[in-house]
């Protein structure tokens, strides 16, 4: 982004009062449901059934969080999601960088064909493989175990394509060739040249993957159960089924499941925004 500004691209007219008004409206619209989740979580079921709806915090927040933590299995769910999303992120970033580098800079047989296969399946929805995955998980006895969610999501075609696009430009071919002439092994080339060059894209891919893995819904609610080893989304789906009828507790659960990512957004908001915008230009 900084480089774009230096080149003088983009328009830099000053925003008027109306611009600010509309932007503030959208900001309120974006944040209000989240703030109201916290407000509803701090009330009780009776209050939520009254008119008008509450617009300020009540005193039940910690009680409701505690009930959600234990009764809705949110405590286990948060730890499980951290494990699942963490492993998926590490796997996706590492394997995508290695394969992306090979596709970007190395010559080998069937390269074009294999790349076409990756790109062709990039947009295939998860629904298309869910029945066989279910059969495999049943066959291996992985039902309600975390690897049933981690392993099928561990690599991503999008990730390989993304890293390839980035490395084509960011990694000078001459640098690799020079190292090769000096007799550097592939391992050394990757460790000392590819990884340092790929670091910004790896960070972007890592953030996008983590958010996606944290919020993944369709496959986890098939593979996991709320009473066993749920992820956050599985536990929330259980709340949606009416497992706990108290609305304020449901909102406390939603709050607990969203809070870690919201905190990450407050801390790294700038980097995440930059990452998504960079990804948009590259992709």
């Amino acid at each position, binding site marked *: 982004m900084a480089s774009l500004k230096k080149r003088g691209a*983009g328009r830099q007219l000053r925003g008027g009062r109306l611009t600010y008004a509309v*932007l503030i409206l959208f900001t309120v619209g*974006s944040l209000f449901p989240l703030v109201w989740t916290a407000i509803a979580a701090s009330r009780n079921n009776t209050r939520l059934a009254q008119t008008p709806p509450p617009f300020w915090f009540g005193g039940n927040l910690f009680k409701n969080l505690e009930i959600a933590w234990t009764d809705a299995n949110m405590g286990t769910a948060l730890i499980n999601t951290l494990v699942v999303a963490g492993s998926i992120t590490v796997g996706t970033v590492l394997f995508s960088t290695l394969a992306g580098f090979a596709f970007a800079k190395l010559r080998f047989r069937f390269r074009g064909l294999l790349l076409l296969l990756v790109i062709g399946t990039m947009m295939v929805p998860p629904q*298309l493989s869910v029945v*066989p995955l279910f059969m495999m998980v049943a066959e291996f006895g992985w039902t309600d175990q975390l690897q049933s969610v981690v392993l099928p999501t561990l690599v991503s075609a999008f990730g390989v394509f993304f890293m390839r696009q980035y490395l084509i430009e960011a990694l000078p071919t001459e640098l690799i060739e020079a190292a090769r002439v000096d007799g550097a092994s592939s391992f050394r080339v990757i460790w000392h040249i590819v990884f340092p060059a790929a670091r910004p894209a790896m960070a972007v891919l890592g953030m996008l993957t983590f958010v996606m893995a944290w919020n993944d819904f369709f496959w986890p609610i098939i593979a996991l159960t709320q009473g066993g080893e749920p992820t956050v*989304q599985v536990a929330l*789906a259980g709340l*949606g089924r009416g497992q706990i009828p108290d609305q304020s507790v449901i909102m406390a659960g939603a709050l607990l499941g969203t809070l870690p990512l919201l905190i990450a957004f407050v801390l790294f908001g700038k980097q995440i925004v930059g990452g998504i915008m960079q990804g948009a230009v590259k992709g």
Partner: protein
Amino acid sequence: MTDIPSDTRTAAPSAGEEGAARRARAAVSPADPAAERRRARRSRRYRRDVRWSPYVLIAPFFLFFLAFGLFPLLYTGWASLHRVELGTPTDMEWVGLRNFSRLLDDDFFWNALRNTFTIGVISTVPQLLMALGLAHLLNYRLRGSMFFRVAILTPYATSVAAATLVFVLMFSRTDHGMINWGLGLVGIDAVDWQNGDWTAQFAVSAIVIWRWTGYNALIYLAAMQAIPKDLYESAALDGASRWQQFRHVTVPSLRPTILFTCVVSTIGATQLFGEPLLFSQGASPTGGSDHQFQTLGLYLYEQGWFNQHLGRASAIAWTMFLILVLIGLLNWVISRRIRRNA
């Protein structure tokens, strides 16, 4: 990075027993047969490395990709030609195309297809239009521009499940629901959002719009910032108003990006699942009491995991795939035409 050459020269022929002294001698007398052998070994290893390392690098990806990506994808097609029960997923009985013919005879399939389409349109069109306008505003020089960007992106961090649970409460049918209360302030009677036909579809779309508008706005913003400044300057010299500049400079430059977001949103709309599932009372897969917002994704889930017909679920999956292929072809035709006109 400068340590690579010197490092490797000592590391490459690491055939244990040779000492540093011998290595030094080898360097001065190239005729030494031992050194000759070492050099041959080194170059052999080097050639092997260059030849095979690409396959080693792509192997981890393709291993998982084949096992959990490509194989299930194709096997779904095979399963769709069988009768497979949820309880005994390994017992498969060949039925040919019967799953597909029963699908086409099922009113609920056509209902789900229609709902997927209408919810897709109601959620995608306003979302992308708003995102475009929002990006245009964010492209001005603003105080606190990073705050606005992060703020409109926060819904993206909220999961489908959490967002839907909150929206269910806000769209609650009686007048204590946030939305109905707001409508009541301006004199509109409480709406039964969940049980109405189009009201439920509207509410489900609202969740999608809320989660994705900011994300798409940032994508458009990134593309807008890459538009060369002089295009605007010359347009302004020609006396173009701000609106005309937006219409005749910004939008044409964004065309590839707009097409890209359309495709991605359409694919997302085709597989819409979590929002309608949790918006339904008790998270039932029927998509409302009257199937009024059952999407294809929900229909698949209902057939497979509630009616226990995995074979029919596979047939639905392949039908969805076919629809996506059609969309892909349509996209290809449109983008080719755009390129030809440009």
